[in-house]
């Protein structure tokens, strides 16, 4: 591709409102799962790597797109086709909710359906083993949720109740998401260890669904008030997965893996580090 073709290709992506995603695809290694199947993308990538002018032009187009986006008019609507897909995804991956009982106990609200996890059939033996080892961890989250829920039942004080409710919901989200991941036949897990080799956390994920859960029960006490980021390290590239939320003494992240990234490649690392300049990883695990 020459300069003109590359710039037209990028300009068309900008006009279609997809330039950031296209650039993400270009950043993926050629031939990888995350790379674009469009053969033109390989040509554009090669051109950008060699051409200063077109690289700078791409940066200017990114800025142009951001400015256009900032002026998005109020008549822009969510895609109609997205509605059913999103609602279906929420139903399939969200926490299990059941109709409320006439006099629901507070601890029942938001507690995930952890017991449903062992009932999933037709899981390979190795997966059964992995899941069995994780059940105590999930049970501990559920227990923490019950304890926290019990706190506000007894204390019944406004602020404490709000905090407790939030923590119940957060722990419920973590346990529920982990349960969904573990119900996937292709699920896998990874231990997160500190620099001294001490096991301090865990990652569970499903390559097919892209769902990922990361948690540690030791981060919160290490540096109260510090926010932790979770990264995927692949070769020399670093991809932010997300910020760790906290609930009680659990720091966790739950959600989809970064767009265009398939987890579980040999040599990939998951690292967790404080969100401060120059911070070193406090937890890491290698696939």
């Amino acid at each position, binding site marked *: 591709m020459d300069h003109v073709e590359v710039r037209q290709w990028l300009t068309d992506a900008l006009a279609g409102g997809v*330039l950031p995603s296209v650039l993400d695809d270009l950043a993926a290694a050629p031939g990888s799962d995350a790379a674009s199947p469009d053969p033109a993308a390989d040509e554009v990538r090669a051109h950008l790597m060699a051409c200063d*002018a077109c690289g700078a032009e791409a940066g200017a187009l990114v800025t142009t797109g951001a400015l256009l986006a900032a002026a998005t008019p109020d008549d822009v609507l969510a895609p109609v086709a997205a509605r059913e897909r999103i609602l279906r995804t929420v139903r399939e991956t969200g926490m299990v909710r*059941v109709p409320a009982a006439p006099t629901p106990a507070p601890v029942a609200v938001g507690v995930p359906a952890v017991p449903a996890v062992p009932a999933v059939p037709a899981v390979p033996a190795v997966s059964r083993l992995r899941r069995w080892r994780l059940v105590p961890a999930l049970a501990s989250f559920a227990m923490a949720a019950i304890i926290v829920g019990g706190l506000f039942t007894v204390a019944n004080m406004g602020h404490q109740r709000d905090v407790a409710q939030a923590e119940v919901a957060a722990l419920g989200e973590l346990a529920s998401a982990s349960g969904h991941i573990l119900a996937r036949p292709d699920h896998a897990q990874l231990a997160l260890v500190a620099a001294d080799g001490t096991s301090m956390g865990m990652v569970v994920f499903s390559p097919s669904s892209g769902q990922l859960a990361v948690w540690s029960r030791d981060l919160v006490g290490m540096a109260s008030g510090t926010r932790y980021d979770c990264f995927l390290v692949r070769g020399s590239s670093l991809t932010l997965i*997300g910020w760790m939320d906290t609930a009680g003494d659990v720091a966790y992240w739950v959600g989809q893996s970064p767009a265009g990234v398939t987890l579980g490649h040999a040599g990939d690392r998951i690292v967790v580090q404080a969100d401060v300049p120059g911070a070193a990883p406090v937890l890491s695990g290698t696939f």
Partner: protein
Amino acid sequence: MAMSPTGRTDAELVASLVAGDEDALGALYDRHADSIFRAAFRLLGDRGQAEDVLQETMLALWNRAETYDASVASLAAWLLTIARNRAVDRLRARARRPVSMLLSAAAGAATDDTAIDRLVAGGELVGAAAARPDPASAAEASWLAGAVRDALAAIPDPERQALELAYYHDLSQSEIAARLGWPLGTVKTRTRRALARLRVVLAEVLGPDAGLRVLPSVSSVEAFGALTQGGSDGSR
């Protein structure tokens, strides 16, 4: 049989959702999805990623509905805060992804933070402006959006129409051609020309530090012409 969600308040629908009523989720989606999508698109400038943020926000609503307190904030504000946090997460990730290195390497700026900031300047700038609650930042964001709308207004109508249908309303070039009765090549030409004109106008308004410059190896006249080639324009 579930009661129709029509006429129920957000708080009532959230209470139903907590009780496991999936119809309430659909009703809340219909009520808030457009504003969430718009907010995410304004920050991210990418339709697919804005859809992802919308999905994550609805998932958070479903999973964390118990934490919503109607006495503290409206549901719309609560949802938009979640969406904004998710979008900013993505902007931060975008700044650290290898594409920034790829572009900065091509631009001869290696991997320093300044180069990354410059290359993602649009996303960082807009994200920060929209996120800050203080009046000065809000005014800055409003002014910026106004400047872009003014620049769009300065573009000839057919070109602006092509760009707006493509960028804001997600119509493909073929769909635009069918809707407006233009040849496909004309749609391409007018869309590219609209973007080229927009950059020229915005570069004048925002100045050289806005990151809209470029074209060192190809003269601006040649580049402008090249960007607008590729199809006939019935208006000429």
